[in-house]
């Protein structure tokens, strides 16, 4: 578990999050109704990320990182975004909660990741992989971002238990 979670899964998480971002943005844009709310949803994500980052940073080095739970948590957020069946008027509130959750998990994960020896190698692979995957995805026509959000969510959720 420790080995995989440090060697391969962080790359899946960073690459996957950037690749899924356009789909997540489309979902968020549809949910947020106005640019003001759209911007605020990102602001709350950012504050939560700072909170998550510091939460990991102040931990004692030998304490448990809970990183598997972080992956699964991120996965659940994406699955929820893809599967959401709330009435339309409830979606902005759900999106707000999800931005808090995703921001915290993202910040926490980033703080953990940069302390790992594989981080620098991942950075290079990350950029190359994102570029290649995005070119590939540009040829895939979809009607709704939901399916990609759910697929990526499931992948992350499984990664937590891998």
């Amino acid at each position, binding site marked *: 578990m420790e080995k995989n979670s440090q060697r391969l899964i962080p790359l899946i998480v960073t690459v996957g999050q950037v690749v899924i971002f356009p789909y997540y943005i489309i979902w968020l844009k549809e949910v947020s109704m106005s640019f003001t709310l759209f911007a*605020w949803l990102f602001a709350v994500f950012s504050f939560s990320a700072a909170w998550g980052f510091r939460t990991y940073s102040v931990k004692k080095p030998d304490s448990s990182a809970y990183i598997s739970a972080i992956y699964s948590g991120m996965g659940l957020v994406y699955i929820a975004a893809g599967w959401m069946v709330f009435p339309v*008027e409830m979606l*902005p509130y759900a999106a707000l909660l999800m931005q808090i959750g995703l921001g915290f998990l993202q910040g926490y994960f980033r703080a953990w990741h940069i302390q790992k020896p594989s981080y620098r190698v991942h950075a290079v692979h990350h950029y190359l992989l994102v570029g290649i995957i995005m070119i590939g995805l540009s040829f895939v026509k979809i009607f709704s971002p939901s399916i990609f959000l759910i697929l990526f969510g499931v992948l992350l959720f499984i990664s937590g238990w891998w």
Partner: protein
Amino acid sequence: MKTMISITKKPWFLALLVIIFASMSAWNIPIEKRKYGLSQSGLATDYTGLLPGKIEQVIPSENIEQLQKIIKDSNKHGKHISIAGLQHSQGGHTYYKNGTVLDMKNMNKILEINEQEKTVRVEAGASWGDIQESINPYGLALKVTQSQSIFTVGGSLSVNAHGRDIRNGSMAGTVKEMTLITPAGEVKKLKRGDQLMQEVLGGYGLFGVIADVTLELTDNDVYSMHTKELQTKEYEEYFHKAVENEKVGFHYARVSVAPGSFLNEMYAIDYNVTGEKDNSTPLKGESAVRLSKFALDLGRSGGRLEDFFWESQKQFSRSFNGDTVTRNNAMRSESDFMEFTVPGRVEVLQEFFVPVDSFEEYINELKNTLPSNDKHEDFKVHNITVRFTERDSFTHLRYAKKDMLGLVVLIQHGVNDKQMQHAENMIQKWTEATLKFGGTYYLPYYPYQTKDQFRRAYPEWEAFKEQKKRVDPNEVFVNLFYNHYLKD
């Protein structure tokens, strides 16, 4: 400073920041506005979303010359045009299958305010709210408009809308002049009394494009509000006294649809002239939207919660007894709180008109037509507002052949085939009960009614159709309403 920086690094501080900002964001999330209207994908809907249709193109309006060119071209090549404003009508009045939609929202300028003559000339795409903003500083107000100001001038005139004013007749009667682009592409200046103007007002967008209109205005009077709770059987007498009392400028009433007092209780609100004029009170905006929506949602639940909602409505009406309000503000009620976005369900409006003196008998008839407790029914009636509409001798498809009371009804039902059929049956029964008392129903809404009911409610339909043939022989201007009720 150092302490400040160290505090910002504390997880508890960041958590607090997230909580505060998230709470602020949640509080400011706007009430959802349903997505409807004209889309880039070539699909059009109106406020109900019940009649989605594929259109060929949407052309944003620019000016009269551009519209003339489009209309002449369409006439020549046998193409169809529909006219759209803010699309609050609910029966496909603003689009037609594979047709062109003229989106009039860009033509929204206030062209001239004449303080001496008390008139305003505006482009048809302006909303009533736009006009109110421009005339309020002059101490002027519209003579007739709807109780909300969110509709376009062109749209409201095309459906000859009415409001709560009981002194100034129909909306059509307040139009002094008009610029019309005919189906042949000619620009005509029309004055009150011209035959063509009579066709266009209440003409549902079938006689040409209204480019601009000159409307009569009045003073921005200050009214004091008076509320009265009463039984439905007492209302006719109360209403006659209100009309006879020249101090009453606006009047409307609500009928209970809560199970405990179903169609028995009412409350009426009169706006009495105080003699004061106003040119300084700002126009009100939407307020307490969340609270109002929460209360309405309670009512939407039906049963005891609907009883509670009715009691809170009465309590609310008592709370503003004696308050004053300007005419402009009385004609811009809140609307955002009514938004309803539950998937698989729809909330629609219907309006039924009955002669004033038949009100009591009509309500008794409705008690036999509608279930008093609709908590477990698919077809739910949420609200009935009663408004006066003075006899209209102006338009062809007139809903007020004599002095009428209009019952504006908010209804919710499901949208699968069975639920739609049930809603249609219920509304047809309701319409039948209305026709029995010499009443009519309003045409800007979803057409649940049969063609036969339309013809009985509007016996002038043949004259309307003949005139349409004369003015627009090539059927340049069409819409789903025309297709449903009038096309051969």
